C-alpha cells in the first residue's frame, strides 16, 4: 500500500485551509462554553463530564462530516482523482488514506477536549468506567462517521449531495448500531424478554439515547452506585467494548467499500444506459406537459435567477418533499392521543428545521455560479445586483413556501382552539422572521466564503447561534430594571433574538449588495 503520499498531501491541504483552524477554535470554544455553563449552574463533575461527552458526540455527528464529505468528491470535481491512479496507488489506498487522515483530525478534537475533561475529575463524581465508556463511544462513532462520509464522498461529485448522503447514512448507522446493541443486550441479560422489549420500543430507544449520551446522570448512577452488582457492570463494560469493536470493524468495511466505489467511478464514465433510461422514465413529465412548460416559462420570464432553482426535477422535488415532511409531522402532532399535550411542542423541531434547511441551501447557492463563471456573465447582463439577489432569494423562499404555509396554518389553527396556556406567538414570530432572514444570511456567505463548508458553518453561527446569544445578553442587561417572571423573561429573550436576527439579515443583505456591486466576492473561475 502507498498511503503516505496521499496522507501527506491531505494533511498539507488541510493545514492550508483557514476552515481547519476555525473548526478547532469552534470546538475549543464550545467546550469552554459548556464547562462555563456547567460550573456556573453548580453541576457536579459527573454532569459536566457527561455534558462534555455529549458536546463531543454532537461535534462528531455534525462537524466531522462537514470536513470529510468533500474529500473524494472534490478530487473528482477538480479532476485530480484520475491523476492519482496514474501512480501505483490503488483505490483502496486512497480510501484508507483519506479515512486515516480525517480520523486523525477527529482524534485531535477529542484531544482538544481532554484538558476540560480533566477538570471534571477534580470536581469529583467521574469514575474510570465513565471515561472508558465515553472514549469508546466517541472513538467508535468517529470511525463510523468518517467512514460513511468517505463512502458518501466517493459516491457523489457535489459536496452538498455528499453531505446529505452522509447524514442519511449516519442515521441509518445509528439505527443499525442501536438495533445491534438492543439484541446484544437482550441476549446477554434476558433472552426471554425480547417480546417485552419489542412492545416497549419507545422506552428502549429513550434508554439507549441516555446510555449513549450519559443523559440524566445514567453513567454516574450505574458506574458508581453500589446497588448494581459488579458482575452486571462488568458485563455492561464488556458489551460496550464489544460494540465498539464491532462498530470499528463496520467502519473499516465501509472504508473498503468506499475504495471499491472509487475504483468503479474514478474514470467518470457515464451511468449505464438502463440507469439513464430509468432516470428519464421517473423524472420526465408525463401529464399536462404543455401546462408544465408554460408554467416553467412563466417562472423564467418573471425571475430567471429563481428559475435556476426549479429547473431540475430534484429542485422541484425539494418543494414537495418538505411539504410531505411537514404534513406528516403536523398530522402526527394534531392527532396525538394525549389531548393535554400542546401539539405545537411537537412542531418546534420544524420551526428550526425549515429555516435550517433554507440556510443550508442558501449557503451553497451562489457557489455554482462563482465556480462555473456564470456570475461574471450575469453581472454584465442588464440584471442589477439587487435583482440577482432577490431573484435567488425568491427562488429559495418559493421552494419552502408550501411547507411553511402549512406549518403556520396548523400553528394558528391550534392556537385558535384556545385549549392551551400559551399562544406560542413568539415562536411563530421567530419562525416567520427566520424564514425570511436565514436565507439572506446564507446567501451572503455563499458569496463571501471560499468554501461551502465555511459558508454553512458561518450561516449556522450568525443565523442560529448569535441571535439567541444577543437576545440573552439584552435580557441579562435589562434584568436589574425589570420584574418579569420566568415565562415573560423567556418570551422577551426570544423576542430580542428575533429582532437581532432581523437586524443581522438586513445588514448581511446590504453587505451582499455592496459586495456584488463592487465585485468583492470569492471569484473562482476555471475553464470548465
Amino acid at each position, binding site marked *: 500500500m502507498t498511503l503516505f503520499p496521499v496522507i501527506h498531501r491531505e494533511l498539507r491541504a488541510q493545514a492550508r485551509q483557514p476552515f481547519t483552524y476555525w473548526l478547532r477554535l469552534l470546538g475549543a470554544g464550545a467546550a469552554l462554553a459548556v464547562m462555563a455553563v456547567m460550573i456556573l449552574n453548580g453541576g457536579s463533575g459527573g454532569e459536566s463530564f457527561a455534558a462534555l461527552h455529549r458536546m463531543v458526540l454532537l461535534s462528531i455527528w455534525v462537524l466531522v462530516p462537514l470536513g470529510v464529505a468533500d474529500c473524494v468528491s472534490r478530487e473528482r470535481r477538480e479532476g485530480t482523482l484520475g491523476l492519482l491512479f496514474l501512480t501505483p496507488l490503488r483505490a483502496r489506498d486512497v480510501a484508507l488514506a483519506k479515512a486515516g487522515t480525517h480520523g486523525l483530525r477527529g482524534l485531535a478534537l477529542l484531544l482538544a477536549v481532554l484538558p476540560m475533561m480533566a477538570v471534571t475529575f477534580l470536581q469529583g463524581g467521574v469514575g474510570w468506567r465513565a471515561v472508558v465508556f465515553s472514549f469508546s463511544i466517541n472513538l467508535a462513532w468517529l470511525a463510523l462517521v468518517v467512514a460513511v462520509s468517505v463512502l458518501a464522498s466517493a459516491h457523489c461529485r457535489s459536496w452538498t449531495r455528499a453531505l446529505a448522503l452522509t447524514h442519511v447514512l449516519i442515521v441509518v448507522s445509528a439505527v443499525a448500531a442501536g438495533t445491534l446493541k438492543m439484541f446484544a443486550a437482550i441476549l446477554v441479560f434476558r433472552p426471554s424478554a425480547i417480546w417485552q422489549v419489542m412492545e416497549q420500543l419507545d422506552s428502549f430507544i429513550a434508554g439507549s439515547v441516555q446510555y449513549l449520551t450519559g443523559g440524566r446522570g445514567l453513567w454516574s448512577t450505574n458506574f458508581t452506585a453500589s446497588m448494581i452488582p459488579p458482575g452486571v457492570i462488568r458485563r455492561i463494560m464488556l458489551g460496550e467494548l464489544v460494540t465498539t469493536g464491532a462498530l470499528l470493524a463496520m467502519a473499516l468495511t465501509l472504508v473498503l467499500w468506499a475504495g471499491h466505489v472509487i475504483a468503479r467511478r474514478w474514470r467518470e464514465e457515464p451511468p449505464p444506459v438502463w440507469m439513464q433510461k430509468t432516470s428519464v422514465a421517473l423524472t420526465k413529465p408525463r401529464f399536462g406537459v404543455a401546462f408544465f412548460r408554460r408554467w416553467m*416559462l412563466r417562472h*423564467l*420570464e418573471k425571475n*430567471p435567477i429563481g*428559475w*435556476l432553482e426549479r*429547473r*431540475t426535477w430534484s429542485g422541484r422535488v425539494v418543494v414537495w418533499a418538505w411539504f410531505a415532511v411537514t404534513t406528516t409531522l403536523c398530522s402526527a402532532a394534531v392527532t396525538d392521543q394525549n389531548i393535554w399535550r400542546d401539539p405545537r411542542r411537537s412542531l418546534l423541531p420544524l420551526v428550526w428545521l425549515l429555516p435550517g434547511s433554507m440556510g443550508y441551501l442558501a449557503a451553497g447557492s451562489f457557489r*455554482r455560479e462563482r465556480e*462555473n*463563471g*456564470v456570475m*461574471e*456573465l*450575469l*453581472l*454584465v*447582463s*442588464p*440584471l442589477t445586483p439587487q435583482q440577482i439577489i432577490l431573484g435567488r432569494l425568491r427562488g429559495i423562499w418559493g421552494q419552502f413556501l408550501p411547507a411553511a404555509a402549512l406549518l403556520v396554518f396548523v400553528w394558528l389553527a391550534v392556537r385558535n382552539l384556545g385549549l392551551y396556556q400559551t399562544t406560542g406567538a413568539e415562536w411563530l414570530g421567530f419562525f416567520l422572521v427566520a424564514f425570511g432572514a436565514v436565507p439572506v444570511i446564507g446567501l451572503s456567505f455563499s458569496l463571501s466564503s471560499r468554501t461551502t463548508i465555511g459558508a454553512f458553518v458561518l450561516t449556522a453561527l450568525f443565523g442560529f447561534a448569535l441571535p439567541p446569544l444577543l437576545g440573552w445578553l439584552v435580557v441579562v442587561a435589562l434584568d436589574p430594571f425589570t420584574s418579569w417572571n420566568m415565562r415573560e423573561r423567556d418570551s422577551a429573550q426570544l423576542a430580542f433574538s428575533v429582532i437581532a436576527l432581523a437586524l443581522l439579515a438586513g445588514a448581511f443583505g446590504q453587505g451582499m449588495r455592496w459586495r456584488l456591486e463592487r*465585485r468583492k466576492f470569492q471569484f473562482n*473561475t*476555471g*475553464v*470548465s
Partner: protein
Amino acid sequence: MTDAPPLPAVQTSGLSRNYGNFTALSGLNLTVNQGDLFGFIGSNGAGKTTTLRILSTFLTPSAGAAIIFGHDVVREADAVRHVIGYMPDFFGVYKDMEVTEYLDFFGACYRIPTAKREKTVSDVLELVGLSEKKGSLIGALSRGMQQRLGLARVLIHDPRLLLLDEPASGLDPRARIEMMEILRELQRLGKTIIISSHILSELETICNRVCIIERGQLIYSGPVQGVRDQVSSGKVVWARVASDQDKAIELLKTNPLIAEVSAVDHEIKVTLATEQTDHSLVADVLVRGGAKLIELREDEIGLEEVFMRVTKGETQ
C-alpha cells in the same frame, strides 16, 4: 454640409486599473472604429483581460474613462450592457442544461420577449453551427462546441460590439479555423469585434487593426501593416542563381540601396536599405550583371515576429 464622422465603437482615455499597489492597466488610450475586427495582443498579465472586463462593465476603472458607442462604462453601465456581448476566457456554462435551455435563460436575463426569444435562439444557433445540437446537454458537447455556444450566448441580444477574450484557446486547428470564419461572418454582418488572442498568425489574417500592450501600457495601436513597417529595419529578399553565387553577391554589394548581402546555404539573403521598398531592385541588379536568376522571394515579417520585437517579454 459634411457628414459627422461616425462615433467610435470604443474610445478609452487614460484608462487605468489598480489592484491594491499593483497596476494592471496604466493610462490606456485606445480607439476602435465601428466595423473593426480589432486584435488585442499582449503577453500573459499584460492587462488584456482587465481592459476587456472594464469595457464589459464587470470592473470599474481606477482612473480614466471608457466610452462605448457614446455611453460611459461607469455612468451608463446599463446602456453599455445592451450594446456589448462579452465572452470571457472560460466557458461559463451550466453543464447539466440543454443548449436551448441555456440560451433561453440568458435571453430571459436580457429581457428578450418569449415570442421573439425562440426565433433568436434558433438564429444564433444556426449562425454558430449548433442547430443540430439544440437538445443536447452542454456537458456532452466538445470543447469547440461549448466555445461556439459561448459565442451564441454573446449574440443572443444582438449586440453591436463583441468583446472576446481568447475565444480560440484550447481549440483544435479545425475548430479554430471555423471560429475565425464565424468571426469574419459577424464582421460582415456589421459587428465590431475586439478579440484578444495568443494565436497571432490568426489575428494577422482576420484583423484589420491591432493593438499591443505590455505591462498595462499601450505600445502600438493601428493597422497590422503599420506595426510591421514600424519594426522592420529593411525588407529581406531571398535570391537563388544558377550561375556563380559569389559573383552575384559581389554584384549586389556594390549597390548603395542594398544594406547587407550574405550567403545562406544555396541562397543569397539580401537586406534592402530602409528607404528601399521595391524588391525588384535585386532582380534588376542581378540580371543586368549577367547572373542567371532562378528564384526571388520576399521574406515578410509576421505578427509574431513583430510582437517579439516590440515587447520585452516582461510580465507583471
